[in-house]
């Protein structure tokens, strides 16, 4: 049982739902990312997704695409992201880390080296959005051996695929709230509640929901039916909006505080 599994157990015993923010590491720069992670935990985040910036992020909407481009300007790599996890841990952050990356950077690092590094860099889970079950057999086996959860995504259109996808999953199941890419939205796929119930029928591990969740009302709503709620683009947009503050020494703390307050109110 890794740190993420333990976190879900504790939350369950307290009848609480995990708030799971996402951010792109290196946006606006590495040092600031570490400070933001500290603020997110202080604001009540339970588990964090650390995004590896990628040149061609197919599953992401414009907000995360822009964050990726900003981070890539600093030459952020998959290794940088892992090192950031360690730095955040050294800064006192105790929550589990999930590495979110497209497959190609993993492939270029080499699977042997990647899993070796994952184990020594405080990573509890992996999300690789462009690796459906048909393409992930080898990775899932290696993740198991490394004691890291390979977190599967299921979509409202997964239908009869759901059982196959979730039956042997570990960590948690990531339910995609609606069709489309990441990004804030006001409405979700029709029948999303039913979809989550279907997923729960086939698995006993925690079920989290993400894609498009941005408001306190949405978080509260999904907290009633899920074990975790992922908020990505809304936080990345908040970070984007305070970059001018973060870049100025005299307003940096104000910027960090603004991010913290945004995340804290999501949980209110």
């Amino acid at each position, binding site marked *: 049982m890794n740190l993420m599994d333990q976190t879900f157990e504790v939350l369950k015993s307290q009848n609480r739902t995990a708030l799971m923010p996402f951010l792109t590491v290196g946006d606006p720069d590495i040092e600031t990312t570490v400070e933001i992670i500290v603020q997110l935990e202080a604001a009540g985040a339970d588990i964090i997704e650390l995004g590896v910036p990628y040149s061609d992020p197919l*599953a992401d909407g414009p907000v995360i695409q822009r964050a990726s481009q900003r981070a890539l300007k600093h030459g952020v790599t998959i290794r940088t992201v892992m090192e950031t996890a360690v730095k955040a841990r050294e800064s006192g952050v105790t929550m589990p880390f999930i590495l979110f990356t497209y497959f190609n950077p993993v492939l270029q690092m080499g699977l042997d080296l990647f899993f070796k590094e994952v184990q020594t860099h405080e990573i509890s889970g992996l999300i690789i959005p*462009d690796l459906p079950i048909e*393409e992930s057999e080898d990775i899932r086996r290696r993740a198991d051996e490394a004691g890291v959860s390979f977190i599967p995504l299921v*979509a409202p*259109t997964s239908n009869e*695929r759901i059982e196959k996808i979730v039956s042997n999953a570990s960590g948690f199941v990531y339910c995609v709230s609606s069709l*489309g*890419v990441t990004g804030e939205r006001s409405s979700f796929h029709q029948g999303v509640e039913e979809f989550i119930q279907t997923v729960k029928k086939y698995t006993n591990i925690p079920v989290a929901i993400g894609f498009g969740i941005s408001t306190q009302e949405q978080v509260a709503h999904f907290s009633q039916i899920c074990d975790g709620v992922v908020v990505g683009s809304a936080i990345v947009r908040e970070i984007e909006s305070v970059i001018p503050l973060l870049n100025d020494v005299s307003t940096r703390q104000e910027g960090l505080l603004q991010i913290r307050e945004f995340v804290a109110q999501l949980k209110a």
Partner: protein
Amino acid sequence: MTQVPDENGRFGKFGGRFVPETLMNALLELEESYNQNAADPSFQEEIDYLLKQYSGRETPLYYAERLSQHLGEAKIYLKREDLNHTGAHKINNAIAQGLLAKRMGKKKVIAETGAGQHGVATATVAALLGMECKVFMGEEDTKRQALNVFRMKLLGAEVIPVTSGSRTLKDAGNEALRYWVSNVDDTFYILGSAVGPHPYPMMVRNFQRVIGDETRRQILEAEGRLPNILVAPVGGGSNAIGMFYPFIEDKEVAMVGVEAAGKGVDTDFHAATMTKGTHGVFQGSMSYLLQDQHGQVIEAHSISAGLDYPGVGPEHSYLKDIERVKYVPISDQEALDALQLLCRTEGIIPALESAHAVAEVIKIAPKLTKDDIIVICLSGRGDKDVESIMAYTGGVQS
């Protein structure tokens, strides 16, 4: 040789379906529908009818006598895909995918385009079939190819400028896939090359193989035997795979795929995916890819917008690795020189893409004998390129 791809869309280690789960159902549905219709003779009849009556197939296999004499003793034939409606081989695939979309009950189609050739072909087919059409095009390309943007609009399509990433073809492809994820219920994605997730590379190959099938019949009629060498330009590689595929089992037929060396394969400005790329996953499939050591995709460069792409179709990667097809780079300058030679010897202005294949033939033909037959896939006509050629050469022809 075993049949490729396998049931997971793999050509050896290449291909596959590296896409978000949100797209998997749509791809499986597409594959099932394609397989059903491919087995239905009336589907092929519909395609054949439009290829003949609408696009003007079959296209000639023309013996380029003056070009042949200029280059020595070998006989050079041109497969005249440039004579298709809309001016390139792209229409073969667009017609077939459009008809498939109609059979699947989809009322809307989308496409990605670089220079605008596939966008124009898709807009044309959408008009023909009475479908709503959106074309994604990098913002940079909409500026460089304003005339094609207007063409598409004239045909009733909506052109959506893509402002993400490098604002060129690869980003247009990303954006089309993203749009498709959100609108899979009523939208069909007419992908323009033999790239992307399974079943696209297989489907596009099968819709383009008409090029090779006709060539085979025509050369047997003209010469009583198969050619020694086939030469075709490769960006994503749809015309090349269409030309090569029917000859794969014919060991005596050598095949050469010509990619763009831009300003040179040792500069930062080329699109020589096979020469300089490494294995990677891009836009849904495993193939050769121009990328840095961290797996970030590198922007390609070529004077030819159709070859200006950092990836390549997975079946080409497979054919390279099993050494069935040889892939060679040709520079911007070599392609321009070849274009001018074809203009002056044959009165044919080829597309810059096709000029790359001609340039390779300029290199190899002088070494061949009178018993050798070369077929060039002249994938498109050069009208679309006249402006950029003029800009490149300063309007002064030597």
